[in-house]
C-alpha cells in the first residue's frame, strides 16, 4: 500500500488546479431544480440573488419529499452544508443548505413543521453527516427526526431539563414573509400560500 | 528485498538529518524571553488592548471628558460599567468591572466625548474579584497627580467610596456587594512602582513545564521576537 506513495514528495505535490469553474449561479440550470422540486410537489419555489442571499434557488417542500429531493441532490454532486432550523409564527422552518462540489452554486430547500407535531423524516440514509445536524436541531428546538439512528442529546447535557433554548416567546415570533425567506416566490399550493399570507404569482 | 533495504537506509539518513537539525538548535541561543529577568519591549505593546481608562481632560488633565451620557453603559455587552451623574455634567462615580469585560471596545467607540481609551498594561494581575472592580475617576487623579504624570499606568483597583455610593449594589458588579472593598493599602507610588516592576511573583501565565500544546496559547504570553523586534529588549524596572 505504501509503495504507491513512495515517489510522493512535498516538492512534486503540484497544485493540480482543475480550472475551478467559478460559474455564476445565473448560468447554472436553475430551472432544472425548480422543475425537479415542482415534481416533488413543492409548495413554493423562489429565486434569490446569489450575491445577496448566498443561495441561488430555494423551495418549501412537503415532509414526504425531503428524502427524495436529498437523494437527487446527492446524485448531482451536492454536499449538505448544514441544517438550520428557526421558529417562525407559522411553525418551525428547517432549511437544508446544499453546496455544489465543483462550482459556486448553493441552493436550499426548506420544510415547515407545525408546533403541534414537531417531527420530520431524517435524511441520514443519504447524508450520514446529517445525523449530527438533526441531533443539534433536536437539542435546540425539540424537533424529533424519526429513523435518526442515535437521537440522544448532542451538545446539551443529557439531563438538561429546561425547554429547548432556541425556541422563542410567542411575542418575539415573526411571520415567514417578514423574515425574507421567500425571495422572488411562486406559490404553487393555495392553502400554504394562505398560511403564510402570500398571494400566488412571482411577486418580486 | 534490495528495495526494502534501500528504503530503510534512506529512512536512516532522514533520521540523521532530523537529528542534525535538533542538534543545531541545541547549540543555538535560547529564543524565549525569560519573564522575570526580561520584559516584552513596550514598542510591541503600543497597540495592545489592556483594561480601559479615562483620557486626560482637554483643559485640565485632572478632569475627565466624560459627560455621563450612559451611552457606553448601554453599549457594553458585558454590562461592566456604572456611571452615576453628579449635579454638574461630570460623573461622580465611574466603576468598571474588568471581570466581565471582553475588551471589545464598544464603549471606547460609542463615547461621543472620546473620554475612554485602552491602556497597554500586560503585566497586571489581581488576587481577588473585588480588586477587578476599578474606579477610573480615582485612577485618572493618581495618574495625573503624581510628580511625573505617567499616563500609561493601569487603572488602580477600587478604593472604598464614601457613603455617596448608592446603597443598592450597582447592577454591574453583582459579585461585589456595596460594602466597602478591602481598603487600598499600598500608597499610590508603591502601587505604580509594583506594576512597573516585574509584577508579583504570580506571573500571569506560569508555563507548565513541557507545556502541552494547549490550543489556546496564553493570551498575554510575553514572547516577543528578539531578532525581529525593532527595539532591543530592555531590562525591567527601567
Amino acid at each position, binding site marked *: 500500500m505504501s509503495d504507491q506513495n513512495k515517489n510522493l514528495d512535498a516538492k512534486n505535490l503540484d*497544485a493540480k488546479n482543475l480550472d475551478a469553474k467559478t460559474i455564476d449561479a445565473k448560468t447554472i440550470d436553475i430551472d432544472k431544480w425548480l422543475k425537479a422540486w415542482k415534481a416533488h410537489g413543492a409548495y413554493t419555489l423562489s429565486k434569490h440573488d446569489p450575491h445577496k442571499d448566498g443561495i441561488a434557488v430555494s423551495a418549501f417542500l412537503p415532509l414526504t419529499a425531503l428524502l427524495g429531493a436529498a437523494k437527487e441532490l446527492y446524485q448531482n454532486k451536492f454536499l449538505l452544508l448544514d441544517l438550520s432550523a428557526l421558529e417562525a409564527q407559522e411553525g418551525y422552518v428547517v432549511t437544508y443548505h446544499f453546496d455544489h462540489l465543483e462550482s459556486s452554486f448553493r441552493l436550499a430547500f426548506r420544510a415547515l413543521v407545525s408546533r403541534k407535531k414537531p417531527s420530520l423524516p431524517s435524511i441520514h440514509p443519504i447524508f450520514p453527516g446529517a445525523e449530527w445536524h438533526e441531533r443539534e436541531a433536536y437539542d435546540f428546538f425539540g424537533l424529533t427526526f424519526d429513523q435518526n439512528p442515535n437521537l440522544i442529546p448532542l451538545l446539551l447535557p443529557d439531563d438538561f431539563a429546561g425547554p429547548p433554548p432556541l425556541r422563542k416567546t410567542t411575542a418575539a415570533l415573526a411571520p415567514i414573509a417578514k423574515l425574507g425567506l421567500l425571495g422572488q416566490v411562486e406559490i404553487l399550493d393555495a392553502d400554504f400560500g394562505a398560511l403564510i399570507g402570500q398571494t400566488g404569482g412571482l411577486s418580486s | 528485498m534490495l528495495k526494502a533495504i534501500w528504503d*530503510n537506509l534512506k529512512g536512516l539518513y532522514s533520521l540523521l538529518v532530523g537529528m542534525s537539525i535538533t542538534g543545531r538548535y541545541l547549540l543555538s541561543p535560547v529564543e524565549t524571553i525569560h519573564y522575570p529577568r526580561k520584559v516584552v519591549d513596550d514598542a510591541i505593546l503600543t497597540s495592545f488592548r489592556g483594561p480601559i481608562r479615562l483620557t486626560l481632560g482637554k483643559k485640565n488633565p485632572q478632569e475627565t471628558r466624560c459627560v455621563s451620557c450612559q451611552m457606553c453603559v448601554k453599549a457594553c455587552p458585558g454590562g461592566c460599567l456604572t456611571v452615576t451623574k453628579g449635579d454638574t455634567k461630570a460623573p461622580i462615580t465611574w466603576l468598571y468591572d474588568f471581570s466581565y469585560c471582553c475588551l471589545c471596545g464598544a464603549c471606547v467607540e460609542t463615547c461621543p466625548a472620546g473620554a475612554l481609551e485602552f491602556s497597554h498594561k500586560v503585566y497586571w494581575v489581581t488576587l481577588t474579584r473585588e480588586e477587578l472592580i476599578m474606579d477610573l475617576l480615582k485612577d485618572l487623579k493618581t495618574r495625573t497627580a503624581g510628580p511625573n504624570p505617567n499616563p500609561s499606568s493601569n487603572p488602580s483597583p477600587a478604593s472604598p467610596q464614601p457613603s455617596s455610593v448608592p446603597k443598592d449594589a450597582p447592577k454591574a458588579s453583582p459579585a461585589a456587594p456595596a460594602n466597602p472593598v478591602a481598603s487600598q493599602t499600598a500608597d499610590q507610588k508603591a502601587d505604580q512602582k509594583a506594576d512597573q516592576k516585574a509584577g508579583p511573583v504570580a506571573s500571569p501565565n506560569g508555563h507548565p513545564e513541557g507545556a502541552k500544546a494547549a490550543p489556546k496559547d496564553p493570551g498575554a504570553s510575553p514572547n516577543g521576537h528578539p531578532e525581529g523586534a525593532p527595539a532591543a529588549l530592555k531590562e525591567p524596572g527601567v
Partner: protein
Amino acid sequence: MTSGPLNMVNPFAVLESPGTLAGDFYARSFEKKAGPNRVILNLGPQHPSTHGVLRVLVELDGEYVVRAEPVLGYLHRMHEKMGEVKTPWQYIPNMGRVDYLHPLAWNWAFVGAAEKLAGLTVPERAEYLRVIGCELNRIGSHLLWWGAFVMDLGGFTPILYAFEEREKINDILQIITGSRLTMANFRFGGVITDADDRFIGLIQEFIPYLRKRLVMYKGLVTDNVILRRRLEGIGPMDVDLCQRYGATGPILRAAGLPRDLRKDCPYGVYPKFNFPIPSGPVNDSFGRYLVRLKEIETSLDIVEQAVNSLPNGPIMMDKAPKVSFKLPAGETYFAVEGARGQIGVHLVSDGGKNPYRVKLRAPGFSNLSLFAEAAKGSLLADAIAILGSLDLVIPEIDR
C-alpha cells in the same frame, strides 16, 4: 458485580458501591451495542491528544478500533443564543471566541453576512487589510495544527518551533487587532485600525523568514521516515465520503478535489490575487498533512501580493454604521474559506434590535462526523493520527 468488560479482566476488583453501572449516560448507551469481550475506552474529555475537550467513545477489540462515537458538548457555550440576545455590533467579539485559531475568518463570515444583508460596501484598503489579516491568521492556525499533530505522533519538539512563528504572527496581528488570540478587528463597513509602516515592515521581514523555516520543517518532520510510516495509508478519505458527511477544506482538497471558496465563490478582493489551490495526490493522513503545508505557502504568496499592492484610502465606509446598528429584515447565507473548511453564517433578521436567528456552520462539526467511519478497523495509534489529521478545534465544533 457489574458486567463491564474490565471487571472480567480483573475479577478481584471490588467496586465501592456495587450495583451502580460504570460510566455515564453516553457510555451506557454506547455500551449497549458493544460486542462480546470488547473494551470500551473513553478517549477524552481530559486526554492529551483530543485538542480541547473532545470525548470519543471507542470500542476496542485488542488494539483495533471496532466502533467509535465522538461525544460533544463539553465546550458548548451556545453562541447561537447569544446571537439572538445581543445587538449585531456586540456579537462581533463572540466571533473571535468561536474559533480562536482562525478568528478573523469567523469575523469575516459574520460581518460579511451583515454587510450583504444591509448592502454595505467596504472600501478597497479595508478589503486588502481583511485579506492580509485572514491569511496570516490561517498560517498561524496551520502552524499550531502542525505542531500539535506531530505531538500527537510523539514528537515533542516541533510544536515549540511552530510557536516561535506563531508569536511573530501574533505580534504582527496585534498591531491591527489589539489582541493576540481572540481577535476582532472587523466592523460593519471596514476595519478598525489602519496598517502603519511598522506593520508592513514586520510582514515583509516575516515572509522570507517563514519560507526559510518551512524548509527546516520539511527536513525535520516531513521527510522523517518514522512520520512517513505513521501517516502513509492511514485513514483514506475519498471525495464521496467527504460529500456524504459534508467535510470541506483541506480534507476535501486532500481527497483530490481543489475546492476552495476563495477561488470558486470569491468574496472580498481575492480575485485580484493569483494563487494555486493545492490538492493532494494522495488522500490519506499524509496527503492532508502535505496539503496544509502547501496552503501555508499559498497564504504566504497571497499576503505578499496583498502587502505589495496595498492601495491607500479610507479603512471604513463613509457613513459607517455605529454601535447601535440594526440589521434590516431579511435572510442571507454567507460562507468564507476558513483554515478548516467552509465557515457559513445563516443570518435571519426581522428588522429588530437583535438578529432573529444566527446559525453558525462550523467546518469542524462536519469534518469530525466522518471520524467514526474513517477510523473503523484502524489501530488505536492510527485513530489518534486520523483525529489529528482532521485539524479539530473543539470550541468551533461545540459552538
